[in-house]
């Protein structure tokens, strides 16, 4: 069940209530049952894959911690990761590769032994697979001790995170499952506030902007360059409000159960460089990629100095692109991120010297230019993430840069509501970024202001929210 479904609105308070009245010793078992019921409710058949991935992870974690030699440990790790990744590769990439082979060979009058196929991706597989792989590597690195299969299953299937993350680490989550916690109303209130804001971001901002973005991107040839440029900008905001909103609901849900989950976004559109942007956007994925892919790669390539770093960056972001989807568009998307970050890495020393010489670091206009350029670069790259094919993406670019100026496509209430909602979101984030703690709404000391702000956001959700979608962009990844 999606967080925006009616089922969840009944399921969630019931789970929180039963969780806190369950005796501590039985709480983890209760949560494990809830996790599997939650997943069964989505696509029952795929629960077998979740259970198999958990079993394989458990067996290999035991193997890694029992074998004696370094070589045997490493081989067990490699074999374990391969087995864990098999279902992800099969469901995410096998169908695409197979269909490409069918098309290629048919074109040349040859036959491929398998027919064309469309495989449905088990929901959340990209996320829980990464959590399982992370667990195994942490065991190999002796950062954590193996846990019993029950706690491992609880970690991999934790219902707030299983559909779209944040991609958590065993070292952060499992000790919290074991910790004796008493009912804490402050935790529940904090969680509910996060959820409320998450619902605002998703239902009022993301889904409203999505109506405009989809209307334009579904008919690229019929829209002018201005409409495509506006839709591309709005898509960046939509993506942020979608996954950022989802993450807040997930983190807030976990918080009501007394569990602290990693922050997934930190006001990304106030970043002034691409490197900073990636420290603020989808933090759990990027830190996973940094720890388990970029760091080992850049360590192996360290003798090549800055070029080794660039190679590691390129490979890491290509993998990030492929993780998002089995399509050339995502490969190009990853390549663009790698190239932009590499240019920044090469220019970082000169840029830093230039900033020091002219005392630019704290100047408002310089920060503004940095934020705008970063936003433009990111939105430009996102065209490859949104377009259905490379041809579509190139058509969007050519129209943006070559069309004569015309007023963009207008869609009355959608644009009005979308811009009001987006402005509220951005003003809130501007306040938190540059005046932290100055203006408090959800956390105001005065009860009346606090409750007024809750009611205002609830009113906005009910009045301006888009209902009936029950889809989050990241479910497809």
């Amino acid at each position, binding site marked *: 069940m999606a967080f925006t479904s009616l089922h969840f609105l009944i399921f969630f308070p019931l789970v929180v209530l039963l969780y806190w009245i369950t005796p501590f010793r039985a709480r983890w078992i209760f949560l494990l049952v809830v996790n599997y019921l939650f997943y069964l409710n989505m696509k029952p058949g795929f629960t077998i894959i979740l259970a198999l991935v958990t079993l394989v992870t458990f067996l290999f974690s035991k193997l890694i911690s029992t074998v004696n030699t370094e070589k045997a440990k490493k081989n067990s790790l490699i074999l374990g990761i391969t087995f864990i990744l098999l279902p992800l590769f099969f469901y995410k990439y096998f169908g695409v590769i197979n269909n490409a082979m069918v098309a290629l060979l048919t074109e040349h009058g040859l036959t491929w032994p398998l027919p064309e196929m469309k495989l449905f991706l088990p929901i959340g597989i990209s996320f829980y697979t990464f959590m399982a792989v992370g667990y195994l590597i942490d065991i190999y*690195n*002796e*950062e954590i001790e193996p846990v019993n299969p029950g706690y491992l299953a609880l970690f991999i299937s934790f219902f707030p995170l299983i559909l779209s993350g944040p991609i958590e680490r065993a070292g952060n989550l499992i000790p919290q499952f074991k910790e004796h916690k008493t009912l804490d109303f402050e935790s529940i209130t904090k969680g509910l506030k996060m959820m409320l804001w998450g619902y605002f971001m998703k239902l009022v901002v993301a889904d409203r902007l999505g109506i405009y973005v989809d209307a334009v991107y579904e008919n690229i040839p019929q829209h002018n360059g201005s409409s495509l440029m506006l839709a591309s900008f709005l898509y960046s905001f939509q993506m942020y409000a979608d996954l950022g909103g989802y993450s807040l609901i997930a983190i807030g849900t976990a918080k009501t159960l007394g569990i602290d989950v990693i922050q997934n976004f930190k006001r990304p559109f106030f970043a002034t460089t691409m*490197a900073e942007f990636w420290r603020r956007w989808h933090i759990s994925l990027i830190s996973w990629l*940094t720890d388990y892919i*970029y*760091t*080992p790669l*850049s*360590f192996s*390539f*360290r*003798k090549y*100095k*800055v070029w*080794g*770093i660039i190679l590691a960056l390129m490979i890491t972001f290509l993998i990030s692109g492929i993780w998002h989807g089995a399509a050339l568009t995502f490969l190009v998307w990853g390549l663009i991120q790698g190239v932009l970050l590499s240019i920044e*890495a090469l220019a*970082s*020393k000169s840029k*830093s*010297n230039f900033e020091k010489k002219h005392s630019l670091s704290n100047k408002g206009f310089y920060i503004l230019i940095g934020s705008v350029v970063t936003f433009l670069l990111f939105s430009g790259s996102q065209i490859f993430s949104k377009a259905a094919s490379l041809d579509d993406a190139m058509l969007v670019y050519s129209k943006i840069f070559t069309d004569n100026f015309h007023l963009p496509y207008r869609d009355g209430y959608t644009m009005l509501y979308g811009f009001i909602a987006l402005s509220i979101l951005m003003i809130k984030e501007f306040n938190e970024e540059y005046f932290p703690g100055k203006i408090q709404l959800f956390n105001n000391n005065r009860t009346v202001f606090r409750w007024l702000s809750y009611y205002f956001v609830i009113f906005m959700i009910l009045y301006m929210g888009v209902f009936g979608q029950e889809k989050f962009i990241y479910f497809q990844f």
Partner: protein
Amino acid sequence: MEKNEILKKVETIFRSVFDNNSLVLTTETSALDIPEWNSLNHMILISEVESAFSIRFKLRDLNMMRNVGDMIDLIASKL
């Protein structure tokens, strides 16, 4: 080699990598204290330290380095 000597030698490497001759290190200095000490510069630093002391780190060693003090302890254990 005494740990103080290692600290002085490491300080020279830091000054060269971060292009900052006024940089002063203590065992408590961490990436939080030096803005340029990011994941990109970290590997260059590691590579320079390896060359200067003729040692080789393992990937696992990197996870144990929380500050300059940890780095010095690790270098000392490999000399």
